């Protein structure tokens, strides 16, 4: 934006005061000349120690060929010097004054002269001079009249000056506003600084300017921009120590420092250090202003007129200060904005990370307000409780829970618990939720949620799927129960049988019977404990296994020999095939013996008297195949699936004999599988069963 500029320092009565003033002055000289019957008149104004033509009447032209007169020089000069009117009756004869001028005037035909000073506030600011061609004695009235004209002229000049000042002031303010706007709207910091420097240069007109900004740790001043010495490298970074002289004082003292004279120069702290010979810092007339933001100093601005060596006008410092304030404000705003953006980004990043954690955690998390409304829920919570948070109906905790309960009483219980917690969130609570609809068990905890003002605004609920754990826990507890029962029963048997025996009179026949039963109970107990131990060790992998090439047929014959009496007792018919071959498997003989014993005993036990038992041992395809077929009670289809499970006893087996542990077939399976084999059963209720296992043959 083009600015009308006042480049020279103030104090000059500017002839650019405007045409209006010029016109006024011209009118005055013409009027004065006319009224006082003089042929020529001129006004000179004081500038520094010189008088300069400001206005002249037409005929005064040749008289005023010297545009500048020194004070004291010539008649006009004396008027100013004395500050009093001066009249010369006859230039030709008057010998007291500047004869050269007089002669010049006389040559032009002028004989007399009257000059009066122009005064503003009692200061002489110029002269109004009349020249007449005749010899003339000027009367007091005429002097007074001319003085009146002079006063008018002075007034006109003053008015003009004020107008100019006002205009200048307005223009400066406009200029400042324009530069300020440019600085604010600039896109980058460099653009801001460039606008500042250019604007300052336009408005205030220093030859050289540079901006130094405090470094991040506040121990240095770093150059931000510079103007005015294109051939020179930019100013260097300064350390903010007393070595930096006036920079240090301006920065820490937060005061502008003006060095406009040698006297000022002597008063400032000298600039020493590595840069003292740098052209930017070698200057004897300068101003330096701190850039202040609140109670912080963010830098300094330095300006001088070193290139033209013009004096610095103190009055120019004020608009410069205003500009520097604007610069400081703009830079600070920029910094604050950068910080704000950084904080926003940080907050955003944190929020994103928290959301990721929130969504990825394996616990369900839900935030519930005090009315029971669901404010937010992560994906796991939605999975566990099977709701979709985009559906408005699924925004209420109680509503979300409802479909999971089949029994109203259970739902009510759960709801009551949550309701109580909502009424008193500080309490914190937790428990299990059995969702009967899905069969899931969730463990939940609830804690009060507070806002940043630590007011309670709701609950944070977490959910974990503990279905598995509760099931395992239940199984363990069931197991303990079962085993307890299994152990206690034979123990009670022993105890009671011995009690009965003890109460019999000596020699009673019953005694032997009772003791026999006690022993059998003891045997049962021992078998149970052994089985349990085997199972436990096999399951945990701790059983010491001695796998050797074992003749399975021989082992089978052995077992059959052992159960021979039992077979006879139950009058079973037993046949065995393949026992004269010798298929060899790598197994632990003792464990395999248990397997065979188990399967054979089962066949005997679960076949009613007079039944048929067939054993078949073969080998093919690198596998040994061992099977036993019986004509016994068979196994119902439903039970067949679970036959090899731990503790399982089919119902029809239980009716035959209630003393089984349910571990036998489980052990068989564990052992066979341990050696890389498989075991299975084919059966039909009441039509007998066939149990088969296969093992890899020894290579």
């Amino acid at each position: 934006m083009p600015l009308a500029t006042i480049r020279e320092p103030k104090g000059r009565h500017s002839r650019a005061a405007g045409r209006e003033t010029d016109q006024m002055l011209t009118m005055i000289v013409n009027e004065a000349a006319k009224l006082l019957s003089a042929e020529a008149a001129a006004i000179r104004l004081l500038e520094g120690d010189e008088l300069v033509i400001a206005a002249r009447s037409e005929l005064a032209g040749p008289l005023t060929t010297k545009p500048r007169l020194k004070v004291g020089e010539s008649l006009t000069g004396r008027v100013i010097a004395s500050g009093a009117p001066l009249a010369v009756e006859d230039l030709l004869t008057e010998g007291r004054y500047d004869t050269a001028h007089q002669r010049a005037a006389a040559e032009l035909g002028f004989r007399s002269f009257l000059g009066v000073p122009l005064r503003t506030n009692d200061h002489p600011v110029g002269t109004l001079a009349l020249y007449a061609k005749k010899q003339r004695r000027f009367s007091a009235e005429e002097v007074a009249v001319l003085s009146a004209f002079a006063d008018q002229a002075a007034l006109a000049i003053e008015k003009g000056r004020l107008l100019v000042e006002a205009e200048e002031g307005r223009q400066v303010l406009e200029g400042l506003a324009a530069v300020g706007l440019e600085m604010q709207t600039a896109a980058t910091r460099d653009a801001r600084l460039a606008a500042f420097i250019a604007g300052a240069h336009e408005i205030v007109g220093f030859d050289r300017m540079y901006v130094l900004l405090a470094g991040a740790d506040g121990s240095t001043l770093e150059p931000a921009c510079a103007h005015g010495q294109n051939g020179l490298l930019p100013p260097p970074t300064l350390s903010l120590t007393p070595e930096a002289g006036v920079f240090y004082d301006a920065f820490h003292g937060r005061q502008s420092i003006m060095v406009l004279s040698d006297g000022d120069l002597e008063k400032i702290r000298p600039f020493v250090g590595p840069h003292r010979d740098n052209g930017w810092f070698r200057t004897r007339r300068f101003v330096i202003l701190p850039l202040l933001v609140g109670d912080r100093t963010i830098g300094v601005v330095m300006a001088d007129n070193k290139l033209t060596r013009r004096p610095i006008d103190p009055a120019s410092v004020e608009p410069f200060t205003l500009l520097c304030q604007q610069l400081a404000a703009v830079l600070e705003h920029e910094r604050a904005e950068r910080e704000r953006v950084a904080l926003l980004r940080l907050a955003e990043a944190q929020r994103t990370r928290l959301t990721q954690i929130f969504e990825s955690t394996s616990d369900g998390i839900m935030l519930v307000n005090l009315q029971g409304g669901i404010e937010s829920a992560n994906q796991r919570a939605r999975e566990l409780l099977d709701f979709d948070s985009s559906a408005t109906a699924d925004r209420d905790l109680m509503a979300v829970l409802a479909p999971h309960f089949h029994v109203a009483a259970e739902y009510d219980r759960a709801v009551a618990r949550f309701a109580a917690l909502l009424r008193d969130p500080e309490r914190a609570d937790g428990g299990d939720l059995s969702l009967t609809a899905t069969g899931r068990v969730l463990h939940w905890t609830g804690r009060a949620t507070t806002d940043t003002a630590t007011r309670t605004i709701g609950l944070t609920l977490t959910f974990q799927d503990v279905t598995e754990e509760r099931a395992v826990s239940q199984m363990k507890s069931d197991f303990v129960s079962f085993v307890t029962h299994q152990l206690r029963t034979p123990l009670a048997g022993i105890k009671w049988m011995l009690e009965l025996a003890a109460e019999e009179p000596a020699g009673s026949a019953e005694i032997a019977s009772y003791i026999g039963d006690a022993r059998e109970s003891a045997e049962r107990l021992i078998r149970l404990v052994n089985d349990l131990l085997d199972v436990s060790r096999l399951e945990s992998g701790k059983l010491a296994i001695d796998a050797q090439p074992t003749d399975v047929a021989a082992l089978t014959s052995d077992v059959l020999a052992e159960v021979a009496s039992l077979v006879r007792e139950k009058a079973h018919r037993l046949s065995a095939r393949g026992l004269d071959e010798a298929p060899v498997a790598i197994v632990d003989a003792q464990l395999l013996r248990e397997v065979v014993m188990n399967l054979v005993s089962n066949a005997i036990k679960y076949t009613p008297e007079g039944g048929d038992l067939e054993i078949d041992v073969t080998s093919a395809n690198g596998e040994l195949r061992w099977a036993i077929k019986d004509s016994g009670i068979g196994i119902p289809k439903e039970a067949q699936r679970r036959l090899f499970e731990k503790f399982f006893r089919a119902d029809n087996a239980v009716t035959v004999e209630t003393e089984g542990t349910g571990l036998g077939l489980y052990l068989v399976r564990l052992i066979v599988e341990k050696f890389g084999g498989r075991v299975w059963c084919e059966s039909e209720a009441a039509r007998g069963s066939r149990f088969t296992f296969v093992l890899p043959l020894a290579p």
Partner: protein
Amino acid sequence: MTAPARARRILLAEDDRFLRRACEAAIRQRGFAITVAPDGEAALEAARRERPDLVLLDMLMPRLSGLEVLRALRADPAMADVPVLILSNSSREQDVAEVTRLGIIGYWVKSNLSLRELGDRVVSFFEGEGDGRG
């Protein structure tokens, strides 16, 4: 207190043959008449048929468990008040709670009792009956 004209009849439901034998002997020794049942179904049937004065009920039995037998008894108006005493070697909390809720005289763990104690308790049950404690 009235001494009963007939001997009290007790129903014993027990699947283990040793325990059955011992219990039966001990109860008979005290002068009670006793019926034995080896499983839950037989027990329920015997209860309905004989209307015993006391049922000694095992929990873990084939066919019907002790709990199921008790439920059936309590659900039957004719049998709802029959005194039941649980004699079990299992002591699962939820079972104890459930049978207590259904109404029992007591819950005793067999291996923790001697036959003498068992007999004593049954006798004292009947003796206490007269003063309204049944």
